[in-house]
């Protein structure tokens, strides 16, 4: 079972004809029929439209990123005077090194990585254990919990902003503020209803005979979880992981609120403030560095994103 097929498994039945349609022969058709494609005028217009579409996508989608990559190694004066020229006065590789060391992007980069890894771990642990308890072990009160988890999807996140902040400032039982600790970002990330539902759907689709067989062979609930369910659920753990890391990397408002100490802040929080006191070329180099990891993840897990988004849409629907 490849990762992508596994990820598709819990999607809406709507996706089923999609897969069937991907495969078959040439008469696989969309809006235009085979006959349409044979007509010269239609074909020419379509080809031309697609060419224009491709060019616009390159300019609009890739353009700004390429510009950023170019400007990251361009001297400030060139970027200011001729923003669209290609290195009129040569390439300045030193920008990147300066951003990394002198502006301490390395530190904020590391903070971002620590935050992302923690968020990833918390989300995966919460989602898999909860999915296992609710979809495989199925206690009688499970429906109530699922309902309560589902209900949180309907509460806009802004309602949570202030009370959640106060929870972090004065956490119950702990007696010590979590402000300026990574826990403040890690822990609330676990309360992600979307992940729980996604994993539950996947677990629901696993064959129950395997669980029963493992039970017959004497596997307890922990053994069943660790040796059977977790290995079988690698595809969905992959989906949750990639989205957890990307979301943590993008997050801005929440880390800005709870990580006030600049030494703890991730790139997203630090970059807007750095802008005020570093030179433009170094700043743009810093922006480029902040973009490398998400883009790399995207390129590696492209299919996951391009199928995963539809999977997200299916769940939202």
């Amino acid at each position: 079972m490849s990762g992508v097929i596994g990820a598709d498994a819990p999607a809406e039945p709507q996706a089923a004809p999609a897969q069937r349609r991907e495969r078959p022969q040439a008469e696989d058709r969309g809006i235009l029929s085979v006959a349409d494609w044979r007509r010269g005028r239609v074909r020419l217009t379509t080809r031309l439209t697609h060419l224009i579409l491709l060019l616009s996508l390159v300019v609009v989608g890739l353009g700004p990123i390429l510009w950023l990559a170019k400007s990251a190694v361009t001297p400030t004066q060139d970027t200011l005077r001729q923003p669209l020229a290609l290195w009129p006065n040569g390439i300045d590789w030193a920008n990147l090194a300066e951003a990394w060391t002198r502006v301490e992007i390395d530190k904020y980069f590391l903070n971002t990585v620590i935050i992302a890894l923690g968020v990833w771990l918390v989300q995966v642990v919460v989602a898999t254990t909860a999915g296992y308890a609710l979809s495989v072990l199925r206690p009688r009160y499970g429906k109530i919990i699922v309902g309560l988890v589902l209900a949180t999807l309907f509460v806009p996140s802004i309602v949570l902003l202030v009370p959640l902040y106060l929870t972090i400032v004065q956490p119950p039982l702990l007696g010590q503020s979590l402000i300026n600790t990574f826990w403040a970002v890690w822990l609330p990330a676990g309360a992600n209803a979307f992940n729980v539902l996604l994993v539950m759907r996947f677990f629901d689709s696993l064959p129950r005979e395997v669980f029963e067989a493992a039970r017959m062979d004497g596997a307890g609930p922990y053994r069943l979880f660790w040796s059977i369910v977790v290995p079988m659920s690698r595809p969905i753990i992959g989906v949750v992981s990639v989205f957890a890391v990307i979301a943590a990397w993008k997050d801005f408002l929440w880390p800005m609120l709870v990580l006030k100490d600049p030494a703890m802040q991730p790139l997203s929080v630090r970059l807007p403030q750095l802008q005020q006191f570093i030179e433009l070329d170094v700043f743009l180099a810093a922006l480029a560095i902040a973009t490398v990891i998400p883009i790399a993840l995207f390129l590696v897990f492209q299919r996951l994103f391009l199928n995963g988004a539809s999977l997200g849409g299916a769940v939202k629907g």
Partner: protein
Amino acid sequence: MTQLTPTTAPPPLPATAETIERTVAATRRRRGVAGWFRGDGPHILVFLLPLLFSFILFSWKPIVDAAVMAFQHTNLIAPAEWVGWENFATVLSDPLLGKAVVNTLWFAALALLLGYPIPLVVAVLMSEVRRARGLYSALAYLPVIVPPVVGALLWKFFYDASPNGVFNTIAAWFGAGPFPWLQDQATAMPSIVLFATWSAAGGTIIIYLAALVGVAPELYDAAEVDGAGVWRKVWHVTIPQLRGVLLITFILQIIGTAQVFLEPFLLTAGGPANSTTTVLMLIYKYAFQNSLGGDYGAATALSLMLAVVLAIFSAIYFRLTRSWSTS
């Protein structure tokens, strides 16, 4: 132990899988508290612990808190004090509120105007691409991957109002501009929406593409038999087939734009002259940018009001559209 219900007592039938299952279910029900401890009960709770911990502390409790705090004065030092509807009165009498509401509506309207049709058109065109469709979707999705902070700071530079600004240089190629972009009250909001559309359209395109693949080819065949050309097929088959998804993306976009924060916060900080201050920025201002200490009560009151408006809007919307949505 009280659940000895005679109706579920297994009749003397041959032991089919069904009867066994029923027996197991019945015994399980009869086991009661002691059985719960002997069986999986405690272990299930162990597995539920992470969920309960994070959702109670960071989701359910804050939701309840929000409803309570809106009627309190809280400053973290003195004990919270009940003040009735005072927070709501404070918020409603804030002269900035009207401005913020109008701005948010303006943002939503512009975002619909730009952000709603563009992904649809692109997705419909893209669904007809036969070769390298993956390349198209990857290119369209790229801006979604760029961290929003990086995107906003980058676009802020693109929006430089001088003739040497990136966008003004491009505009000059076509003999237009220079435009003031973010510096002018009239163009600031459209500029923000343009950026927001750029950074979000890819996600919507992917959703539409998935829905487009699900349109049954037979419908197009049938339309052709009836003599429909390309445009009529798009208008009478494709769009109606997408209406379920279109309705959902519409409501999601409204809910999303009502909570817009990062874009105006980073691009204009609400200026010039509060022309881009949104409701969420106002909430942020009450709670976190107050020199007198956070007015958490007012902030929660406003966020509750926004949530209620959104809920009412969604309810009305779904009621109105139920008749013509898919199944």
